[in-house]
C-alpha cells in the first residue's frame, strides 16, 4: 500500500515543483549570462588601454584620433551626484521612516505610506522632466550660474527617487522592533525620544543601513533622470554647481552612435562592467546588513 506509484497526482506535483525550481534558477542564470556578456564585450577594450589607465584616465574622447578612454571624470561624476543625493536622502528618508513608524497612527500613517510608495511609481523620465523645467531654472537663478543643469540638480532629483526605498525598508525595520523593547525602556523612565534613539534605532540599525545602501544603489544605477538634469559634460566636477556626466548616462547617450564592434563600443561595455561591480558591491553589503544576526 505504501509503495511509491506514479499516478497523475504525483506527476502534477513533480511538474509544479520542477517549474518553481526552474523559475528560481532562471534568475540566477540570467544574472550570470548578463555578466558574461558584459565581460566578453567589454574586455576587448583593454587591448587598447590598460585597466588602470582606463579607470584613472582623465580624458574621455572616444571618437577623436587617437581616442582617449579614461573614465575617471565619469566615475567622479557618478560619485558626486550619488554623494549629493545620499546627503539629502538619507537623513530625510530615515527621519521620515521614524515619523511614520513611531509617531503617526491610523489614517495618517496609511496615507503617508501610500504617498511614499506612489513616489516610487513616478517614471524617471518624468522626474527628469520636472528637474529640467522646474528645478534647473531655480538653481541657475539662486546661484547665478551659466546653466542650471548641475551636479546639485541631479542630486536633488535623485534623492527624490531614492526616498521610497529608504523610507519603506527603514520603516519595516523600525516596525519590526518588538513592542516589549519600547515598554521596557519606558518603564525605566525613558521619554519617547530617548526610547527611539537609544533602543528602537539601535535594534533596527541593520535594516536601516540596508535601506540606505539599497537607496544609494538605486541612485548609482539611475540613468534617465540624471542624464536630463546634470548637464552631461564629461569632465571632473570641482563643485556641486558644475555640470558633470555619470557612468550610466555615458552609456545611454553614446551607445546609439557607435559602430558595433568598434573600440568605442567595447569601451562602453567596459563602463558597464565597472557599473555592475559597483552596484553588486553595494547590494551585497546591504544584504549582509539585512541578514546580519541580531546582536
Amino acid at each position, binding site marked *: 500500500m505504501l509503495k511509491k506509484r506514479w499516478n497523475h497526482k504525483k506527476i502534477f506535483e513533480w511538474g509544479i515543483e520542477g517549474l518553481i525550481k526552474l523559475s528560481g534558477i532562471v534568475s540566477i542564470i540570467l544574472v550570470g549570462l548578463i555578466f558574461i556578456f558584459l565581460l566578453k564585450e567589454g574586455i576587448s577594450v583593454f587591448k587598447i588601454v590598460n585597466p588602470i589607465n582606463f579607470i584613472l584616465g582623465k580624458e574621455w574622447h572616444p571618437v577623436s584620433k587617437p581616442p582617449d578612454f579614461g573614465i575617471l571624470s565619469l566615475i567622479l561624476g557618478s560619485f558626486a551626484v550619488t554623494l549629493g543625493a545620499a546627503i539629502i536622502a538619507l537623513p530625510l528618508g530615515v527621519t521620515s521612516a521614524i515619523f511614520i513608524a513611531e509617531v503617526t*497612527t491610523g489614517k495618517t500613517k496609511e496615507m503617508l505610506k501610500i504617498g511614499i510608495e506612489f513616489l516610487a511609481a513616478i517614471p524617471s523620465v518624468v522626474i527628469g522632466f520636472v528637474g529640467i523645467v522646474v528645478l534647473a531654472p531655480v538653481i541657475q537663478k539662486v546661484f547665478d550660474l551659466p546653466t542650471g543643469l548641475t551636479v546639485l540638480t541631479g542630486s536633488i532629483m535623485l534623492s527624490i527617487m531614492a526616498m521610497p526605498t529608504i523610507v519603506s525598508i527603514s520603516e519595516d525595520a523600525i516596525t519590526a522592533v518588538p513592542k*516589549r*523593547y*519600547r*515598554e*521596557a*525602556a*519606558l*518603564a*525605566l*523612565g*525613558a*521619554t519617547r525620544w*530617548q526610547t527611539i534613539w*537609544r*533602543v528602537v534605532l*539601535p*535594534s533596527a540599525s541593520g535594516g536601516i543601513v540596508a535601506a540606505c545602501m539599497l537607496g544609494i544603489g538605486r541612485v548609482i544605477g539611475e540613468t534617465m533622470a540624471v542624464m536630463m538634469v546634470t548637464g552631461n559634460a564629461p569632465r571632473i566636477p570641482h563643485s556641486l554647481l558644475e555640470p558633470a556626466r555619470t557612468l550610466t548616462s555615458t552609456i545611454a547617450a553614446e551607445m546609439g552612435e557607435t559602430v558595433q564592434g568598434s573600440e568605442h563600443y567595447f569601451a562602453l561595455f567596459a563602463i558597464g562592467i565597472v557599473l555592475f561591480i559597483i552596484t553588486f558591491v553595494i547590494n551585497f553589503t546591504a544584504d549582509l546588513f539585512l541578514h546580519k544576526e*541580531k*546582536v
Partner: protein
Amino acid sequence: MVDKLARIVTEELNVWYGAHQALKSISLKVEANEILGIIGPANSGKSTFLQVLNRLIDLKPQTRVSGRILIDNQEIFGANIDVEALRRKIGMIFALPIPLPMSIFDNIAYGPRRNGIKKKSMLEEIVEESLKAAYLWDEVKDRLSDSGLNLSGGQQQRLCIARTLALKPEVILFDEPCSGLDPVSTGKVEEAMLELKKNYTLVLVTNNTKQASRVADRTAFFLMGELIEINNTQEMFTVPRDKRTEDYISGRFG
C-alpha cells in the same frame, strides 16, 4: 497593631479598554516594605492593575481610568505629574525578561546615565551594587561587556531586576516575573525578592498561587476585574473568606 505606612492607596479605581471594563472599583493599600501578591485567573485585571500604577497604561489607545491612586500621598493621575519620574520611582519587571540590545553594563547604566550620571567610577559602583542586590554579580562580574542577550533566561530576569534597582526606585512591580523560568531560576528570583523587601515595596502579580504563598506577606485575589479578597497570605491560603477564593486556590477553576 501599629498602622503601617501605606505606600500605595487606590480608591474606587476603574479602568476601561474601550467598552470593556478591566478593573471594577478596586480599593486597596500596599504597605511599605511588604510584598503584596496578586493572584487570579487570566483576564482578571492583575496586569492592568500594575500598568496603571506606573502609567504604562497611557500607551494603550482608548483606555479610560477613573478613581484615585495615591503614591506616597500624591495623586498620580493629577496634573503636573512627571510621568518619566513616576516610572523611575515605580520600577517594573516584565514576564519576559527584556534586556535592551546592549551590553550587561550598559543595560544597567542606561537609567543612571540618563539621570545625568556620567562619571565612570560612579556608574561602575551603581552597576556593581545593583547586580549584587539582584544576586547576579558573581555570575557576570567577569563579562560585563557581553551582550545582555547572551545570558540565560533566569540571568536575564535578574539583569532586568538589577536594571530597575539602578534607578533607585521605591516600589517595584513584578508582572509574572517567573512565568518563563525553570524552578531553579525561579528560586533565585524569589530569593532576590525576599531580600529586596527590606528596602523596597513590592507588588507581585503571579499565575502561580504557590509562588504567592511562598513570598507574599499579603495576597489579593482578583476575578473578572474585581477585588474579591485581600488578606494575610497565610490566612488566605488556610481559611479563605470567600468561596471563590477557596475554589481558585484549591484549583477547582481558573
